[in-house]
């Protein structure tokens, strides 16, 4: 005899617990928030402390257009997830691809900005404290956008081959939580770097 | 209230004496003290106000911790003894008690009160030590930590020396404290002479400040307390607390430039042609390097290489020949001098009194 089952006649009727995917993603978001917080603290601490080299005010131009792109992609992914819940696969796929396009354009904007900073202003990660903290913080965020885009692309491919249906809406919701997080981080980074820091 | 205070301060003094006696006995039984036996490194043998404030507070904290220990430990021992399971009650479970709100409240409130008392006593000492303004007559020393030696500069007196700090004794009625500014040329260090003060770190790009007012003359020893690399263990400190007259005499000697002695000309030439002057300063000559210790009055020091060896001809010769034989990891390179050059330069060093 291997196990003695434990059960009680007056067992609980409805036993619903939160979805493990959402809990796990919430945990990941918590952990990542801590990492970003440390980079933001370093950025704020070193404001005005560079001994030489370009200052934020001299070289930074707020990327308004690309920010709008990224933040709108949160809207599109939200509606994409909603469409999938209602089994509107075509709409889901369309909105999903739009999200990828918007996210991709944000990355393009980052690349353009970095090109300008490096070639026109001579600001690199090793130039001074501003360079180090700027490229690290914005770069860390861009890395997370890239990772997110990779996951979104995977889902897009699976979706184009008809593998993403209503049954997957839980997974899509979890992924969109991550994407919303990436956008929320950008709001903070934008404020710290382009508003407070200049 | 004053009765309590009196009893408490007597208790404190008694405990302090007991600790002092037991701890200060320790350096005696294990060591061989040479000639001018320096004081020990016992945090309960304070010779300066900061160290004394710390020692007094520490005794208070120790007593409270001791009382807590005795109470809880007794409860534990009693429990273990009284509630031992005996063979006779096998099979019967004791009363299943789940908790008690009153007890929980009691043993929450009492620790909170203890924390409040400890914190207030502590905060007072923190401010008393850290927020002291620098008085007009204080001796000022800038301490610069290096891998693996100490640079001491007295800006108002125009003195630069290394590893052995001389300061005047401070009469409590007429205090002449020494205020130290702590800087670092490379990585983190920590200035710790236990009988004079608690330790304060030397961190590059982060100047720190500490003060001592030693009330006894003598030599106080200590060493670097923040791991700084290979020879962290051998970054020793000697603080010579001199009477006012001796200190003034020491200052006058240190302020002089190096003497020119006939017998040392050959050695001086070796010194000046072998890159020694790139790292070392000898005041009054063309040697003005800042990377290594100032050698102008090398012979006035008891030890070399931050306390690693006695300042003797043989040790000095070995050091210059190859520092890594005495202190592997030291940043001074072996100068690869011939025997003749080595002897000459050591003779020159011996003139730097």
């Amino acid at each position, binding site marked *: 005899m291997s196990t003695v089952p434990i059960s009680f006649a007056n067992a609980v009727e409805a036993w619903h617990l939160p979805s493990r995917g959402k809990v796990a993603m919430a945990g990941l978001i918590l952990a990542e928030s801590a990492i970003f917080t440390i980079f933001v603290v*370093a950025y704020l601490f070193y404001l005005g402390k560079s001994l030489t080299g370009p200052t934020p005010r001299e070289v930074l131009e707020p990327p308004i257009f690309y920010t709008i792109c990224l933040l709108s992609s949160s809207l599109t992914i939200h509606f994409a997830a909603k469409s999938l819940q209602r089994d509107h696969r075509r709409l889901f796929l369309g909105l999903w691809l739009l999200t990828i396009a918007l996210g991709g354009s944000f990355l393009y904007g980052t690349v353009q900005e970095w090109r300008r900073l490096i070639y026109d202003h001579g600001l690199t990660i090793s130039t001074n404290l501003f360079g180090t903290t700027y490229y690290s913080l914005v770069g860390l965020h861009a890395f997370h956008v890239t990772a997110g885009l990779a996951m979104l692309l995977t889902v897009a491919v699976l979706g184009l081959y008809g593998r993403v249906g209503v049954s997957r809406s839980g997974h899509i919701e979890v992924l969109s939580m991550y994407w919303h997080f990436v956008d929320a981080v950008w709001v903070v980074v934008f404020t710290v770097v382009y508003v407070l820091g200049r | 209230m004053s009765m309590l205070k009196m009893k408490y301060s007597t208790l404190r003094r008694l405990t302090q004496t007991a600790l002092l006696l037991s701890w200060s006995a320790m350096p005696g039984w294990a060591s061989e003290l040479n000639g001018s036996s320096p004081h020990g490194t016992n945090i309960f043998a304070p010779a300066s106000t900061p160290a004394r404030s710390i020692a007094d507070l520490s005794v208070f904290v120790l007593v409270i911790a001791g009382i807590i220990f005795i109470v809880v430990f007794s409860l534990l021992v009693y429990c273990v003894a009284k509630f031992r399971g005996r063979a006779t009650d096998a099979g019967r479970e004791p009363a299943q008690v789940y908790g008690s709100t009153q007890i929980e409240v009691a043993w929450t409130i009492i620790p909170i009160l203890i924390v409040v008392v400890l914190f207030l006593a502590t905060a007072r000492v923190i401010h008393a030590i850290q927020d002291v303004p620098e008085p007009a007559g204080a001796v000022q020393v800038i301490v610069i930590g290096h891998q693996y030696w100490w640079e001491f500069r007295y800006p108002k007196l125009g003195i630069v020396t290394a590893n052995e700090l001389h300061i005047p004794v401070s009469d409590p009625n007429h205090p002449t404290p020494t205020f130290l500014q702590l800087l670092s040329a490379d990585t983190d260090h920590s200035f710790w002479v236990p009988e004079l003060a608690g330790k304060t770190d030397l961190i590059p790009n982060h100047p720190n400040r500490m003060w001592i007012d030693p009330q006894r003359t003598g030599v106080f020893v200590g060493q670097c307390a923040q791991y700084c690399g290979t020879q962290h263990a051998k970054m020793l400190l000697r603080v010579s607390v001199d009477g006012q007259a001796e200190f003034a005499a020491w200052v006058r000697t240190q302020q002089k430039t190096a003497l020119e002695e006939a017998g040392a000309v050959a050695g001086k030439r070796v010194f000046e042609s072998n890159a020694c002057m790139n790292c070392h300063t000898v005041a009054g000559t063309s040697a003005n390097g800042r990377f290594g210790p100032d050698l102008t009055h090398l012979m006035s020091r008891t030890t070399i290489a931050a306390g690693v060896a006695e300042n003797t001809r043989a040790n000095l010769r070995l050091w210059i020949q190859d520092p890594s034989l005495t202190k592997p990891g030291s940043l001074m390179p072996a100068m690869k001098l011939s025997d003749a050059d080595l002897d000459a330069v050591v003779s020159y060093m011996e003139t730097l009194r």
Partner: protein
Amino acid sequence: MSANAITVSGAQIEAKPWVDELHQWLTTIDHKRLGILYILSSLMFLVFGGVEALIIRIQLMHSHSHFVSPEVFNRMFTMHGTTMIFFVAMPILFGFANYLVPLMIGARDMAFPRLNAFSFWLSFLGGLLLYFSFVGGSGLYGAGNAPDVGWWSYAPLGARAFSPGHSSDYWTLALLVSGFGSIGTAINIIATIISLRCPGMKLSRMPLLVWLNFVMAGMVLLAITPLSAAQIMLLIDRYLGGHFFDTQAGGSAVLWMHFFWIFGHPEVYVLIIPCFAFMSEIIPVFSRKPIFGYPVMVAATVCIAFVSMSVWAHHMFTIGMNSYANSFFTLTTMAVGVPTGIKIFNWIGTMWGGRILFKTPMLFSIGFLFQFLIAGLTGIMMACAPFDWQLSLSYFVVAHFHYVIVGGILFALFAAFYYWYPKMTGRMLSENLGKWHFWLFLIGFHLTFDVMHIPGLLGMPRRIYTYEPGRGWDSLNLVISIGAFIQAAAIIVFVANLILSYFKGAMAGSDPWDAWTLEWSTSSPPPAYNFVTVPTVASRRPLWDQKHPDDPDSRYE
């Protein structure tokens, strides 16, 4: 005999070829096997870290000893600390959590079994990477250089300028990699506890071990990540020319300290809280009473988790913070002692009025209580900033934290081993060898770590490869070193017990201790699926309710 039980009788079960067995272990995603893998790998690193400790102690037996060079000594203490914290303590606690949490909540596995396996192998790889430094640290020169920057790698010592070559990078990368493994496991634990509890197991009915691992996992998410961030910054400094901690470029060495200790202090609570969990399961069973004050124990732990995030700069009292900062951290550090003390009182309250059985798990638990009390008190002493200006960076601190880690954490772990080994293997550990292990280790521990406080009070700093003979530290260090060898002997007895009992130990049955949580309702070892049917529970001690149907806990909760 329930109708739901599955019996296999009379069938011939062929022994698997060892390669297949090995393959199963290497590819397992079963939380129980992964738990055992964590525990075994930790024991291996325990031996490495222990050898490093013995080398340190041999070198320090006498002043001016030449047993090892200063370079080797500095590598030894760096590797000893790094190994013990990251590759012994954390993984072994994750291992026990992995094994026990699903069983205790009536689940079949962790929420994400594949993530679980991935996290384990990341951790293990990190450990191997760290030790590869002995061989590969200098790159092509092959001479090997383990990191020698201390386990904190303070700036600027960890910078390229002061740590050339790759030894420091092994430290950084090994911890970064295993740090991601830890985050994965923490996420898994949280998701498992929230989403996979069996019907009836409300949060207020979870065993304390589950609660405390839940809190620990939450802390891991917030504590490990600052270290990961700081290490990424260090790598940027070392490889991309960054200036995060470059004091020559205006960077701050103190910033590294803040980041490191924002990790470092909660980390030690991450280590101790699962040990509180063990105590909260073991002490009640061996006192034959429920835990005293369950809700207070939960509240105190949550309180500790929050307050411990505000105390970190008590590791930095000597760096020259102003008096207000020093006072603040004194206050918070003393404050965190309150909920911690409450827990000790509750354990004693559990034993009070009970019927205490002095089996080996309980011996180690009582040792824990005694030693953790002392460790907490020396902690309060160092919370007092001026006292800490003398005690910090000396052997007093080393004595304090070893008192917590060896006298507290390791004793609790030993108790956990003796308590749950029967469940994991089906065999009892030898009580006789257990008692030898306990008493030998107790004597060795106290000889070393009680005495170790004294050189600290007498001015002996830490991390020194040798010391001057005139300072009165010689005989003390000799005694300390002797104690280390006695502890080593005790560990040998322990390992012998683990191995011998595996083959010769008495059969345990499913519930050898007459305990009350769900893991004791399964066979020993449990089947891969844990439970034939998912249990439903109505109280904190489901097996007590089952054994005492006339007086179930559900009536009193």
